[in-house]
């Protein structure tokens, strides 16, 4: 069975400081993992995805994530937060049948 745990429901950082959003997954086989972002009143937008290629994945807007099989983690990072990064972030694992299993989301606040 597949599942995702986002360890923080809310993260608050100052503008210009690093961002770390944590995600742990459970999967009975080699998973595909995604990070999506949702800005208010907008759809879910893909930030990046891991599909068994390089373990360090670079996405849009300076975000990246590292797949660590030994730790079953796929944490999202960004070196320097921008005000426009304030949003809800979802970690997602995909099943063989292409069902997406979502984490509960992490709300990121960026303080000016």
């Amino acid at each position, binding site marked *: 069975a597949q599942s995702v745990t986002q360890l923080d429901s809310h993260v608050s950082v100052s503008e210009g400081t690093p961002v770390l959003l944590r995600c742990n997954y459970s999967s009975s086989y080699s998973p*595909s993992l995604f990070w*999506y972002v949702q800005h208010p009143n907008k*759809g*879910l937008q893909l930030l990046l*995805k891991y599909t068994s290629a390089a373990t360090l994945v670079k996405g849009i807007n300076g975000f990246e994530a590292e797949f660590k099989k030994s730790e079953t983690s796929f944490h999202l990072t960004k070196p320097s937060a921008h005000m426009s990064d304030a949003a809800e972030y979802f970690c997602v694992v995909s099943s063989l*049948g*292409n*069902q*997406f299993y979502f984490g509960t989301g992490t709300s990121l606040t960026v303080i000016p």
Partner: protein
Amino acid sequence: EPEVTQTPSHQVTQMGQEVILRCVPISNHLYFYWYRQILGQKVEFLVSFYNNEISEKSEIFDDQFSVERPDGSNFTLKIRSTKLEDSAMYFCASSDWWAANEQFFGPGTRLTVL
């Protein structure tokens, strides 16, 4: 840039009424999905659809739900007799390939059942 659209953005209905939520997937995509998010809870898979039939469905997707692709562009979710617990945000998504590929999501329809 192509995007998934959904209408209406907000639907209010009385318990027991039928509702149809509409989605226009990206035009060259072949796989379509519905998800829902009850307020304060995680996004949950409802159903996937390919080649005019359901590929997978979750246990949430009971006989009250149905999906249809009535023409070449629309993809609809029908709830026959709404219940209070159907109140949620419903997201449509589409993808151009199966398994492990990016799904493109619409902005959602907020359904409120009174």
